[in-house]
C-alpha cells in the first residue's frame, strides 16, 4: 500500500500497527496513546523505541514518570528486550522522573525548564529521533499549579515538533474524554486508543485509531495481542479476496481420499473443513494431512485446542503415525493451548503471530469449535474469515476440524463457517450390522470433480483407510437418502481387515 498523502511517517515496527496506520506514526509529531491502566501503553511506547533502534537505526529516549528504569527493564524483559544493552550501546536513554507532591513545596512562579533540559540532554546524548513520555499526566498529580503545567505542556509539544522528534505520549483514559487531563487538546495529529475488555471472563485487547490528521487510516477496532514477541495488532482490512489461486494440488495424506477429490488431492492454498461428531477421527485425518506435508518437505503447523502435544503424538502412534521424527527435525510444529486461555480474537492474533514465525505451508486448526465456544458469537465468522483470508494470501493450505454436536443437523456448522471453506468433508457415525462405524463423504470441493460416495472410514494400525462405498439400510438421515443406495455389505468385506 502506498500512502497517497505527503505526510511523512515513522514506522513503529509493531506488527500490524503500521498497516493500520498506513505506514506508521506521523514523523516529527506527537502521537497520543491513551488507555486505561494495564492496556499496554507503556509496552507500545517501549516497542516503538526498541524497533526504532533495532530495525530503523533511530535512537530513542524514554522518559518514565511512573516506573523506574529498573522496573521498566524487568517488565519488558519478558518480551525479550534487553534495555540495559541498548542503553550501554548508547542507543536508548531512559530517564525516570520522580514527582511526589508531598515532597514538593510550591511558592511563586516556576516553569518546567528542568524537564526540558533533561529531555534535551538525553536526546542530544544519543542523537534520538524518537521520544516516549510515559505518562506525562503524572505532572498534574504531582504539581499544584495546573496553569503552569498546561502552558508548559504546550511549550513541550512545540519543542518536540521544532526538534523534529517523533513522539509518543501516553495518557490515562478519562471519564467522558479520552484522557483524564484532556491531553488530547494539545496533541492534534494522531490519537490511538487502547482498550482492554473482559467479556465472559475472557479479556480482549483492542486498538483504535481515533484520529490521524492528514492520513488515511483504518477506523475499526483491531484486536491486538501482547504475546511473547510483544504487541501484534491484527489488521483485518489488509487481506481480502484478491489472493491468487494456485492450481497445484497437494495430497491429503490419505491416498483413498485423494481419489475422492479428483485423484490429486486438494488445491494448494485452499481451506478444508472436516466436521464430524466426537470420536470419528478428525484429528487423525488432520495429522495425516500434516504428515504428508512433512514428507514433501514442507513446514507444517498444528494448532491443538484439546490435547497436549505429547498426548497427540502418543495417540497417533497407535494408528501407525510416528510424528516424532518430524517434530525433532523442526518441520512439524505444534502449538497446543486451551481455548479458554485467551479470547477468540486474541487466539487469532496469536495464531497470526505463530504462523508468521513458523512460516508453514500447511496448517491445521483442531478444532475450531472450541474457539467458537469460548467467545461471543457475533464476531466469530468474520474473525475466522480473516484467518482464512490471511492463510490464503500466504498460500497456506489449511485444514480446520469442526466438532458437530449430536442431535443437530450434521451438515451444518455452528457459525456457517462452511461457506468460507473450499472443501468440506464430513465424518459421521453409522450403525452397521450391529456395530458402530464411521463414514466419510465429501460434501463439497470447489473447483474439482469430487466423489459423492459415502466411504467407510477406518482407523487401523497402519493408518487411515477408506472402505468401499458405504451403505446402511438402517440409516434414516435425510442427507443419506439423497445419495444412491449403496451395495450392502460390500464395505464390511474390505473394511474389516
Amino acid at each position: 500500500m502506498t500512502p497517497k498523502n505527503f505526510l511523512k511517517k515513522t514506522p513503529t515496527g509493531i506488527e500490524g500497527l503500521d498497516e493500520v496506520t498506513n505506514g506508521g506514526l506521523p514523523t516529527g509529531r506527537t502521537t497520543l496513546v491513551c488507555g486505561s491502566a494495564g492496556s499496554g501503553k507503556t509496552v507500545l511506547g517501549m516497542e516503538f523505541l526498541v524497533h526504532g533502534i533495532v530495525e530503523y537505526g533511530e535512537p530513542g529516549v524514554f522518559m518514565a514518570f511512573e516506573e523506574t528504569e529498573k522496573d521498566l527493564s524487568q517488565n519488558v524483559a519478558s518480551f525479550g528486550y534487553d534495555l540495559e544493552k541498548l542503553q550501554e550501546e548508547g542507543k536508548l536513554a531512559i530517564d525516570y522522573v520522580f514527582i511526589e507532591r508531598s515532597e514538593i513545596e510550591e511558592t511563586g512562579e516556576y516553569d518546567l525548564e528542568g524537564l526540558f533540559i533533561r529531555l534535551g540532554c538525553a536526546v542530544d546524548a544519543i542523537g534520538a529521533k524518537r521520544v516516549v513520555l510515559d505518562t506525562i499526566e503524572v505532572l498534574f498529580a504531582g504539581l499544584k499549579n495546573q496553569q503552569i503545567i498546561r502552558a508548559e505542556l504546550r511549550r513541550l509539544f512545540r519543542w518536540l515538533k521544532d526538534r523534529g522528534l517523533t513522539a509518543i505520549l501516553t495518557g490515562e483514559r478519562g471519564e467522558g474524554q479520552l484522557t483524564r487531563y484532556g491531553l488530547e487538546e494539545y496533541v492534534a495529529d494522531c490519537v490511538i486508543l487502547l482498550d482492554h475488555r473482559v467479556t465472559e471472563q475472557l479479556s480482549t485487547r483492542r486498538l483504535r485509531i481515533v484520529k490521524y490528521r492528514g492520513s488515511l487510516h483504518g477506523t475499526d477496532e483491531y484486536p491486538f495481542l501482547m504475546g511473547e514477541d510483544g504487541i501484534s495488532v491484527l489488521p483485518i482490512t489488509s487481506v481480502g479476496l484478491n489472493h491468487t489461486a494456485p492450481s497445484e494440488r497437494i495430497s491429503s495424506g490419505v491416498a483413498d481420499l485423494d481419489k475422492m477429490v479428483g485423484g490429486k488431492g486438494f488445491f494448494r492454498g485452499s481451506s478444508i473443513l472436516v466436521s464430524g461428531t466426537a470420536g470419528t477421527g478428525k484429528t487423525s485425518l488432520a495429522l495425516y494431512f500434516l504428515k504428508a506435508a512433512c514428507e514433501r518437505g514442507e513446514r507444517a503447523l498444528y494448532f491443538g485446542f484439546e490435547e497436549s502435544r505429547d498426548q497427540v503424538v502418543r495417540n497417533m502412534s497407535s494408528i501407525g503415525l510416528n510424528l516424532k521424527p518430524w517434530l525433532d527435525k523442526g518441520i512439524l510444529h505444534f502449538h497446543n493451548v486451551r481455548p479458554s486461555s485467551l479470547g477468540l480474537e486474541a487466539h487469532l492474533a496469536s495464531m497470526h503471530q505463530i504462523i508468521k514465525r513458523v512460516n508453514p505451508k500447511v496448517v491445521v486448526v483442531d478444532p475450531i469449535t472450541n474457539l467458537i465456544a469460548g467467545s461471543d458469537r457475533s464476531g466469530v465468522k468474520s474473525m475466522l474469515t480473516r484467518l482464512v483470508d490471511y492463510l490464503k494470501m500466504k498460500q497456506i493450505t489449511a485444514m480446520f476440524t469442526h466438532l458437530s454436536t449430536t442431535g443437530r443437523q450434521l451438515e451444518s456448522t455452528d457459525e456457517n463457517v462452511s461457506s468460507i471453506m473450499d472443501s468440506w468433508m464430513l465424518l459421521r457415525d453409522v450403525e452397521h450390522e450391529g456395530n458402530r462405524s464411521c463414514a466419510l463423504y465429501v460434501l463439497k470441493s470447489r473447483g474439482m470433480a469430487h466423489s459423492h460416495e459415502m466411504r467407510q472410514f477406518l482407523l487401523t494400525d497402519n493408518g487411515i483407510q477408506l472402505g468401499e462405498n458405504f451403505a446402511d439400510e438402517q440409516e434414516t438421515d435425510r442427507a443419506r437418502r439423497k445419495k444412491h443406495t449403496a451395495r450392502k455389505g460390500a464395505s464390511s468385506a474390505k473394511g474389516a481387515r
Partner: protein
Amino acid sequence: MAGQSGEPPQAQEHGQPERWLLKLYVAGQTPKSVAAFSNLHKICEKHLKGLYQIEVVDLLVNPKLAKGDQIIAVPTLVRQLPAPIKKIIGDLADEERVLVGIDVRLAPSHTETK
C-alpha cells in the same frame, strides 16, 4: 516522606541545626531565577545567619545534574543538609512557605515576620 507542609515548625530551645546546605537549581539568568536567589538570600540572612551555604546550580551549564537530583521545575531549591532532602519550587517569594518548606524553626522573635 516527613515534613508535612501544613504543620507549623516547632521551635526548640537548641535552635537551628549547625549547618544548612541549600542548592538552588536555575536555568540561566532568568528573572525568576534572579528573584529566587535574592529571596533566598534575604530569608537566610534573616533566619540562618552564619549557618547556611547556598550553592547555585545552573542547569544550562550542567544539564546532567537535572537527572541526578530529580529536577523538573526551575527554580528549585533543595535542602541538602540537614537531612532529609526537601524541595521547594518557585521563585521563593513567599517567605513563610519557604520557611515551612525547608523546615526552618523560627526563633520566637521572628514568628511575626511578614
